[in-house]
C-alpha cells in the first residue's frame, strides 16, 4: 500500500426528485422545506468511490456539504455509508446562492481542509447545471477529472507524484483522461454500485464528528453571496403549460396504420 489518500466528497441535500418540487413565490428560490430532502443520488456514487479508494490506498474520507441547518439530516444519512467525518458550511446569508458563488464558498471551505482528491456527483437532481466540479477545479487551480465512469489512482512514483486516470463518459463512448493529483473528480452512476449501510454503520454514524463553518470562518462577505449576491436573477416562474389532451386508442390490427396516419398528420413522416 502506497501513501494514504485524503479524500473529500461533496454532498448536496436536494428536494426528493420523486415528489413535487416548488420554488418560493416570494423570491423564486428553491423551497427546501416544502418537499422531503434527500442526499443527491449521484453523490452516493462519489462516496462509494471514495470509500473504495480508501480501502485500496488507506487514508481518510470527509464529507463537505453547503446547505441550511436542516441539511445536517442528510449529512448524518450520508455518513452512514462509512465516511469518517463531515464539514457543514452553513450560514443564513447563503440562501439563494447562484452556482458561481456556491463554487466560491465551496472552494474556500476546501481551502481549510487537507485533501488529495475531491470527489462529487457529476450533477445534482435539483439544479442540474453540472458546472460545480469544473468551477471548483478552476478556482482551486487543480486538475479536473470530470464525468468519470471509472477511476484509478496509481501509487506515488519516485518523485512522490500521484496520477489519477478516469474513463470520462461521453455521448459517443469515453475518453481516457489523466492528471496529477490533487484533482477534482466528478462521477456518474455508471462508476460503481453504492452499498447499503449495515446496522453497525448506522449506529456509528451518530457519533461521527460534524464540524460547522460559517461565512466569517471563510473570510467571505455575506453581501457577496446568497440571494443578493447572485450573478443572475429569476424574473418569473410559470408551471409548464399542460400538453394538449392527446388521443389514446386501443390496439387492434390497424394500430400501426393509425400511428403512421398520426405521424403523417404532424408531418413527421
Amino acid at each position, binding site marked *: 500500500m502506497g501513501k494514504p489518500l485524503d479524500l473529500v466528497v461533496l454532498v448536496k441535500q436536494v428536494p426528493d426528485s420523486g415528489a*413535487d418540487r416548488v420554488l418560493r413565490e416570494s423570491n423564486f428560490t428553491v423551497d427546501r422545506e416544502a418537499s422531503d430532502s434527500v442526499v443527491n443520488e449521484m453523490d452516493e456514487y462519489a462516496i462509494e468511490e471514495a470509500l473504495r479508494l480508501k480501502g485500496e490506498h488507506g487514508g481518510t474520507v470527509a464529507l463537505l456539504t453547503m446547505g441550511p441547518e436542516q441539511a445536517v439530516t442528510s449529512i448524518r444519512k450520508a455518513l452512514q455509508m462509512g465516511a469518517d467525518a463531515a464539514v457543514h458550511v452553513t450560514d443564513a446569508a447563503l440562501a439563494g446562492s447562484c452556482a458561481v458563488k456556491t*463554487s466560491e464558498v465551496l472552494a474556500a471551505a476546501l481551502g481549510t481542509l487537507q485533501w488529495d482528491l475531491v470527489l462529487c456527483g457529476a450533477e445534482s437532481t435539483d439544479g442540474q447545471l453540472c458546472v460545480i466540479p469544473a468551477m471548483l477545479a478552476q478556482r482551486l487551480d487543480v486538475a479536473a477529472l470530470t464525468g468519470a465512469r471509472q477511476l484509478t489512482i496509481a501509487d506515488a512514483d519516485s518523485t512522490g507524484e500521484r496520477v489519477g486516470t478516469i474513463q470520462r463518459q461521453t455521448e459517443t463512448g469515453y475518453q*481516457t483522461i489523466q492528471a*496529477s493529483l490533487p484533482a477534482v473528480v466528478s462521477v456518474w452512476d455508471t462508476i460503481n454500485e453504492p452499498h447499503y449501510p449495515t446496522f453497525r454503520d448506522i449506529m456509528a454514524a451518530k457519533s461521527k464528528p460534524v464540524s460547522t463553518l460559517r461565512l466569517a470562518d471563510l473570510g467571505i462577505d455575506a453581501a457577496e453571496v446568497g440571494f443578493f449576491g447572485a450573478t*443572475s436573477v429569476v424574473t418569473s416562474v410559470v408551471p409548464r403549460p399542460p400538453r394538449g389532451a392527446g388521443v389514446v386508442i386501443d390496439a387492434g390490427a390497424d394500430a400501426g396504420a393509425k*400511428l403512421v396516419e398520426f405521424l403523417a398528420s404532424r408531418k413527421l413522416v
Partner: protein
Amino acid sequence: MSSDNVATEVLVLAEHTDGTLSKTTAELITAARILGEPAVVLLVSGSSGEASGGSSDATVDALCAQLGELGVAHVVLARSPEFGLYLVTPVVQALAQLVRERKPAAVLLTASADGKEVAGRLAVLTGSGLLTDVTELHGDGTATQEIFAGSAIVASRIITGTPIYAIRRNAITSQLAVPVQPEVHTVEVLLSASARASRILDSVVEPKGNRPELTEASVVVAGGRGVGRAEDFQLLEQLADQLGGAVGASRAATDGGLYPHQFQVGQTGKSVSPQLYIACGISGAIQHRAGMQTAKNIVVINSDSTSPIFDIADFGIVGDLHEVLPQTITALRERAGS
C-alpha cells in the same frame, strides 16, 4: 488585436468534428442574432499548413464556408495543437482571452457536457454569471430554462459580467440567413500551464451503428421494462432506422440489462428534446419524463392504460408493443413503397 467591434458582438463557440459544424452551431448563431451580431469562435487543433494530424487549411476553409452559408460575417479563428490534447481548459483560456480583448455582449455555447464545463470555468475566470440549458433567449437578455424535470419554466437574467449562455440542443430552431463571405480574424491564443492539467490520452467511440446521436436526433424511439427482452430492442432499432432516429431506453431498461447504459434517457441519463419521441413499454416515472417531456410530439405504446406516460402523450396506443411495432414498421414500409 484591438477591439474594433460594436458593443453588440456576441461570441458563439462553434462545435465541429472532421470539418463539419454541428447542427447546434446553427442554432447558436440564430440565438446570438437575438442579442446582437454573431462572431463565431472557431478553435481548431493543428497549425496552419499542417496536412495531417491536425486540422488542415482545407478543413478551416470548409468550416468558414459553412459559416458563410449561415450568414456569419465574422469568424474568430485560433489554432493550437493543444485544443485536442487537454480537457476543456485550453478552450476556456482562449475564450477568456477573447472576452477580454473583444468585450462581447454575451457568449453562447452548447449545453453539452464539455460546453457546460467551459461555461462554468469561463464564468469564474471572467467574473460573470451563467445560465445553462437555456431553451429560449430574448432581446433583453432574459433566458428561459426548464427546471424540476420540465415541470416549471423559469425566466432569468444575468446581472454580473459578460453573460454566458449554454443553449440546450434542439431547443431553438435555426433560421436561414443570407449567405456571406465571412471575414476571418486570426488570433494567437496564449495558454498557461494550468491549461495542461488534464491530458486526453484517447477518445474511444463505442459502436452505435449508423444512428444519429441520441441528444441531437430529431426522432427518438425509446424502450422500457415493457420491452421485456434485450433482443426485442431490435424492433425499436428497426423503427428508429426507418424514421432516421436514435434509440433510447429508460433507466429500468438499462439497469435491467436490456440496453446499454449510454442510451439512458432521464434524470440520471440524457435529456432529449426531439421532434418525435416514441415511448415503448415505458411507464413514465417522473425521472424518465425529466429527460424527454420537452419533445415536440410524444407517442406512447404501452399495454397498461394507467401508466402515467399516457398523461403526456399526443398519441397513445394501449397495447402490446410486440404487436404494434411490427404493424407500424409494415405500415411505414407500405407508405414508402406507395
